[in-house]
């Protein structure tokens, strides 16, 4: 098997799986689950293989495929791995089987359709990460929303229609602006080079005037910021999370939110470097506001899912803060934080799903003292909580530490030039670790500690985790600790791409050799 075809196989495996799924009888959900599990596990194996084969320190794309698609517009089917998407692809492939395994017992309605949607979603998400052609990227970006709407809309909670609509309105609004910017870019390429092209590598070379850059970045940034989500474009997230089924929440928090930050990393900032620098104070402010605002909101929620949803807002604020530090520490930290958040928030949503399956309530007030009756569950919940508050040796710490260090590192020279603002923001962001502990420990205390209290638990007879659930969580926890303890392998593989990112956004600083 040639290496590039392995990447194509990775991408199209869910499609093949989906086609096979059609052949299975609706009456045999076990077969449907088994097949999906098989397909996604195979995908994980391929992704892991690709990760191991990926060479660190090599510039440019690896496992590249480039085939003309719509020749007249210069559109190519162009995919490839680089340091920016490598870890996210791995994360997506890692979460896939866990999502299906997590939905073994919770999804009983339209099982086939559900797994088809999950597979389709997997395909589109991987496509978005892998696309090296803006047109292809856009197609995947939009296609991704369809299965997500359906997953929330069909298997969601009571207010699912409202949540779906809100999700749709927000994202559609962002997409339209992005489409306009994409079209404009395409025309610019045509007029500057004489040949149409959507290749992202070509677009990096465009020379755009600053006002145009600002306009286009606005178009892209709104779309991405909605996905991230950054305050004040975040209100769709809690609703979507609360109404989505567990699998939906996991994918949403685990992968979908990373699309926004990945968009900034891959497209938004490097395509429009001058505008990015102009926007940096704004984005940095919004990132820090997101950290604090999300933490504040998470503190006053009584719906467990909402707490975790708002914590996502807070955690992705760190990612954005890292991205706009434009130095290796910060951006590397941001990438790690993306992966970490995917694992941690995904895991927490899975755990909420598990307790919801048992007690049918997401109200924090209805619970208490679960540590007594569900010891294994509590251990895992505690571990995930620790990762969420960024305790050292967990992935959360690796991400947050590098991000904050990077932000501080970027802000200090500015402070010496007399610019206090970035330093103040970087320092304020550090407060986030206090506030994070505040709301997560409140959640733990109310849920696990105190006197025993749980709805639908007659006489405290709650079933502790099954082997399947333990397996899912153990995999997550292992990954979390692996990144917390040995992040170096990840960092080495992403470093070259991050250096190029810095060179594109801040050529003069990169030229001075400041990393």
């Amino acid at each position: 098997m040639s290496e590039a075809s392995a990447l194509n196989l990775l991408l199209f495996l869910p499609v093949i799986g989906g086609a096979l799924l059609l052949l299975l009888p609706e009456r045999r959900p076990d077969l449907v689950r088994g097949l999906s599990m098989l397909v996604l596990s195979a995908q994980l194996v391929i992704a892991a293989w690709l990760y191991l084969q990926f060479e660190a320190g090599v510039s440019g794309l690896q496992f590249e495929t480039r085939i003309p698609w719509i020749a007249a517009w210069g559109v190519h089917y162009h995919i490839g791995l680089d340091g920016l998407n490598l870890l996210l692809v791995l994360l997506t492939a890692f979460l896939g089987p866990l999502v299906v395994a997590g939905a073994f017992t919770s999804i009983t309605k339209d099982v086939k359709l559900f797994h088809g949607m999950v597979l389709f979603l997997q395909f589109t998400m991987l496509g978005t990460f892998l696309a090296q052609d803006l047109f292809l990227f856009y197609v995947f970006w939009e296609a991704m929303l369809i299965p997500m709407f359906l997953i929330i809309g069909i298997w969601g909670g009571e207010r699912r229609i409202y949540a779906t609509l809100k999700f749709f309105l927000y994202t559609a609004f962002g997409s339209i602006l992005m489409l306009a910017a994409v079209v404009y870019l395409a025309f610019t390429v045509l007029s500057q080079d004489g040949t149409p092209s959507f290749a992202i590598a070509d677009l990096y070379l465009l020379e755009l005037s600053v006002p145009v850059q600002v306009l286009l970045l606005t178009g892209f940034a709104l779309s991405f910021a909605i996905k991230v989500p950054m305050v004040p474009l975040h209100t769709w997230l809690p609703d979507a999370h609360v109404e989505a089924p567990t699998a939906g929440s996991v994918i949403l928090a685990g992968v979908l939110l990373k699309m926004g930050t990945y968009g900034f990393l891959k497209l938004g900032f490097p395509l429009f470097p001058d505008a990015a620098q102009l926007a940096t104070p704004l984005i940095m402010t919004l990132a820090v506001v997101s950290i604090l605002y999300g933490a504040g909101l998470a503190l006053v929620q009584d719906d467990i899912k909402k707490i975790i949803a708002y914590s996502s807002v807070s955690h992705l604020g760190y990612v954005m803060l890292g991205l706009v530090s434009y130095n290796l520490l910060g951006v590397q930290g941001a990438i790690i934080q993306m992966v970490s958040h995917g694992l941690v928030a995904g895991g927490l949503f899975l755990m909420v799903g598990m307790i919801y399956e048992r007690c049918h309530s997401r109200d924090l007030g209805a619970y208490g003292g679960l540590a007594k009756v569900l010891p294994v569950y509590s251990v895992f919940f505690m571990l995930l909580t620790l990762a969420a508050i960024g305790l050292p040796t967990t992935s959360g710490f690796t991400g947050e530490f590098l991000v904050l260090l990077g932000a501080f590192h970027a802000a200090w020279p500015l402070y010496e030039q007399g610019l206090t603002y970035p330093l103040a923001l970087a320092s304020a962001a550090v407060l986030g670790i206090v506030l994070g502990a505040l709301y997560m420990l409140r959640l733990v205390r109310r849920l696990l500690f105190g006197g025993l209290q749980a709805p639908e638990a007659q006489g405290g007879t709650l079933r502790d985790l099954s082997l399947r659930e333990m397996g899912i969580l153990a995999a997550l926890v292992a990954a979390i600790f692996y990144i917390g303890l040995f992040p170096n392998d990840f960092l080495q593989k992403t470093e070259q791409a991050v250096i190029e990112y810095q060179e594109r956004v801040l050529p003069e600083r990169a030229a001075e050799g400041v990393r």
Partner: protein
Amino acid sequence: MDGMLTLLVLLPLAGFLLNGLLGRRLGTGFVNVVGVGLPFLAFGVALWAWRTLEAGDGAPIVETVFTWAVVGEYSFEVAFYLDRLSAVMALIVTGVGALIHLYSIGYMKGDEGYARYFAYLNLFLFFMLLLVLGRSLLVLFVGWEGVGLASYLLIGFWFQDAAKARAGRKAFITNRVGDAGFLLGMFLVFTFAGTLEMDRINEAFAAGLIPVGVATAAGILLFIGATGKSAQIPLHVWLPDAMAGPTPVSALIHAATMVTAGVYLVARLSGVYLEAPAASTLIAVIGVLTAFLAATIALVQTDIKKVLAYSTISQLGFMFLALGVGAYGVAVFHLFTHAFFKAALFLGAGSVIHALNGEQDIRRMGGLARRIPWTFGTFAIATAAIAGLPPLAGFFSKDEILWFAIASGEGGALWLWALGSLTALLTALYMFRLLWLVFLGHSRMEPETERHVHESPVTMTSVLVVLAAFSVIAGWFALPQYLEPLLALPEVRFAWGGWHLLQVIFAVLLALLGLAGAAWLYRDGGRPADELWQRFRRLHRVLAGKYFVDEFYDRALQRPWRWVSDRVFLRLGDRLLIDGSLHGLAALARWSAAAFARVQSGSLHWYAWMTLFGLVAVLIWVWRYV
């Protein structure tokens, strides 16, 4: 030998994993062997490491384990670093730690979470060793946060009591506030020194290439971290609440080891503080104020463990006073002696509580001296030690601190000494008060409790005896001189050495005064003292209320933040402004859609006519303009 330090650190981790995963299933025998045996083994390894260190004449041993991360030109390595300072700390941690593990066998007997308890305790030991042995600030921070976690878990060990769980959370969050400062200080140091390895940081600062302002800022920020972990003003509020945990935990974590991490940090980074006199002054001031205020609070507490908690805060204040005046070795000396007598005191208190079946209120004790003689004997020795009676351990270290508070050439001042001396007097007073109220006089116990009073098992008393013995002899090691190559003592301002002798005599007099005062005030169940307090009722209320710091934080920080989160963020921001405008837009869209929908009448003729009209318009436009 290679891997010695790694082995030392990994032993307790192995204990944690074994006990955590298998302990419940394999029973207490297994738990005891693993949970207690491994810490003793670790102590043995620590001794061996110390011997190796001394064999190399104190040259630091560095052991790189693995590279955590390489980012660009920066490399973050996990490496252990053993010099005399960390060797002393490691010996204290493993030594006192192992003893307390042993003691716990008796204390925790029959508890539901027996295995869990030992797992947590081993976990604590692991992180504490990381903290002490880490070469880089990063590893130290890992340990720092890790001991915080272990502390959180152990304070909330009886998690079904919501108040105890809440105390754990409070400890963790207060520490996190300090950690935020720690992180910032770490970033600042990193920005200038380009490394997080502490020996290299010290070198970089000592080279004088770094501006004083930066050194001061970094020093203060790191000290904020230290105030969190070492319970100094203004972050001291968590420690008294932390007494909710099992008593051996209070002895190990909240007296002997973890809370001294801040002292260790400052001593370890003495290179930074030597360049930042302003930060040092701040440390001295905070230290002496904490020592004094905590001592005043300890005077009126009625919970045996709370008294000891405030005593710990006060003693830590002494250590910071020493650090602030540049006497780093002396601070570590006091840390060393304090570990023994405070552990002895806490374990003695634990033994009392054990004997009284959970009773903690000293107003319902008294006359226990004859009933539990071993406990009384060791407790009395430790009390004398902390009060500073010669020749016990506390006398030497405290005397040195007071001496340098006035004599140090690096920030010694009369008022520091005066306040410190006053605190020493108060220390003697409240400690002997405790001794009198608990062990002497006549019994004020409930009859039901009194009938069951019993001496603790030998696993507990033997530990008490060992600790008491060390409380006696620990002061005879000249630790400041031993550490001198590493942590130079400050210059003495006075030319005539006789001043020191005078100060020693004065300190002893103060301790004796405290003893006499306590004996007089707290005879007869403390009635004379009560009468005295009647006259200063308001003062008593303030002291008993711990200066109302908790209430102040609640009103000034916690509630406003909740209020802002709830009202401003949630109700105003999310619901009103953001969702409100979104819903407004939706309503606008619906309204305009309704307007447009009228065009769609359903009449085919009308549609066709509109097509016709549109066609005409298009044709006209095309022919006119294209």
